[in-house]
């Protein structure tokens, strides 16, 4: 049993050289068979395993991770959480997620530094304002918080923003105060530790390289550590979804794209909340360590390379400096990339597949980190009951065929434009 974390246990351990801590999770050998297998030790996979154990009493669950847990997108995203969506299928789901975030640390006994510092979407012209209003109103109708800030209110919050010499002057912004950031790595580790303590086997360095099927559906997975049997398998492998799904002969409405992100050198507090710039694709916040964490748009071409090219770096810096001219002398410390499965309408998929017992959790595009707890919650529900969870009902695969699309920004079937 893992040691409980608290200021008292920390004090106690500090007095004895921290020798009493137990590993946050075990490092077990895979068993020959499990009731449930979750492929992918990212945020979604680990959360799924945790909720399978916690909500559905499953005790024989494995998470298979090809590398180290948290090494995928959960460990490389810009950590923004929010529920300020527009489309009917999305708001309830993301709001469910936000509510789970709000109680998560106590639930899993791990400080993930959930920081509801606010998410502010800036707008720069009348039509953007109307779109923000439409979205803000949709949020209100769902009982979700949102405020429209005018130019002066934004100026007060962000005195360093460019209000006087901007190509696209700031008119105002839509603020969701309950939005914010979460320490990305801690989410993976916290869920892993909590799942492990409920008996879930977290198996790292175990890549799924085959999916075995018989007439009754899925039988198990071939892995780099041998065959592991299970009749219920959930895929939560983010940017790698198409590859894993293809092992079962599935072709999906998904392309893998590369998104870069950036962090500056550590600074004293400068950026008070999460800000998205409306005159480009740029978002920024400041981490607890002081680094400005920011990003922009994807690199636009299909990629599995986890690294991007210079034009996007330049473009993101142009946007940053256009928004906050004082960033000009702030230095970019590091850039990195993650592979995201961009779906054809920009919204996720949590559903059964054509193969019995094989389930899909995918298509998170730019925005699946904020979904982590709800995604795990709903995917666990689907795996355990074979029924979609109520708040994830819209995320069915067949929507592409029927036309019941959830296209937040109206880009159509162009994954790179979402």
């Amino acid at each position, binding site marked *: 049993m893992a040691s409980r974390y608290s200021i008292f246990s920390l004090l106690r351990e500090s007095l004895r050289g921290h020798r009493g801590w137990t590993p946050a999770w075990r490092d077990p050998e895979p068993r020959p068979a499990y009731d449930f297998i979750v492929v992918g030790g990212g945020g979604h996979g680990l959360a799924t395993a945790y909720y399978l154990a916690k909500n559905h009493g499953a005790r024989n669950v494995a998470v298979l991770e090809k590398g180290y847990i948290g090494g995928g997108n959960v460990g490389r995203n810009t950590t923004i959480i929010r529920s300020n969506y527009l489309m009917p299928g999305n708001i309830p789901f993301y709001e469910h997620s936000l509510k789970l975030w709000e109680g998560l640390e106590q639930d899993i006994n791990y400080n993930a530094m959930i920081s509801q510092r606010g998410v502010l979407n800036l707008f720069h012209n009348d039509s953007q304002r109307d779109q923000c209003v439409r979205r803000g109103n949709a949020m209100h109708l769902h009982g979700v918080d949102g405020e429209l800030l005018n130019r002066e209110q934004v100026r007060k919050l962000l005195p360093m923003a460019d209000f006087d010499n901007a190509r696209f002057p700031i008119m105002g912004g839509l603020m969701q105060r309950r939005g914010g950031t979460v320490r990305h790595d801690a989410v993976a580790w916290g869920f892993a530790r909590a799942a492990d303590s409920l008996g879930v086997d977290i198996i790292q360095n175990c890549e799924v390289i085959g999916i075995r099927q018989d007439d009754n559906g899925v039988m198990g997975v071939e892995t780099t550590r041998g065959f592991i049997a299970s009749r219920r398998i959930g895929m939560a492998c983010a940017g790698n979804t*198409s*590859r894993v799904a*293809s092992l079962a002969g599935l*072709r*999906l*409405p*998904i*392309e*893998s794209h590369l998104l870069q992100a950036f962090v500056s050198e550590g600074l004293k507090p400068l950026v008070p909340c999460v800000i998205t710039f409306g005159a480009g694709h740029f978002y920024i916040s400041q981490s607890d360590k002081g680094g400005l964490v920011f990003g922009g748009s994807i690199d*636009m*071409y*299909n*990629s*599995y*390379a986890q690294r991007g*090219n210079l*034009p996007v770096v330049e473009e993101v810096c142009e946007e940053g400096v256009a928004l906050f001219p004082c960033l000009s002398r702030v230095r970019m410390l590091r850039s990195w990339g993650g592979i995201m499965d961009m779906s*054809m309408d920009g919204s996720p998929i949590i559903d059964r597949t054509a193969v019995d017992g094989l389930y899909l959790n995918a298509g998170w595009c730019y925005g699946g980190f904020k979904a982590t707890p709800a995604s795990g919650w709903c995917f666990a529900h689907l795996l355990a009951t074979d029924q979609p969870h109520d708040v994830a009902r819209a995320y069915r695969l067949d929507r*592409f*065929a029927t036309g019941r699309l959830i296209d937040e920004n109206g880009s159509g*079937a*162009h*994954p*790179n434009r979402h």
Partner: protein
Amino acid sequence: MRIPCPHCGPRTHEEFTYYGDATVRRPSSSSPDAVAAFYDYVYTRDNPFGLHRELWFHQGGCHEWLVVERDTRNHAIKGAVPARDVFKAGESK
């Protein structure tokens, strides 16, 4: 990345607009299974881990569509040919 435009020579990919998979073919609208065929054409993708044939438009240059063969694992480009040639030849995958 530098895309070897067969018309203009090698150019930075900033000059190009990306469209995506060049292996899918627009089905006939009059066939009985047209809806299913168009669903497949518009929505589903191989999304290969490796060589990918893809359409790029030389927006900042000759205004020609190219079919570029590129490895999605490391971005290495094998070549680029005018889309006109590929599609005229009625080449499938």
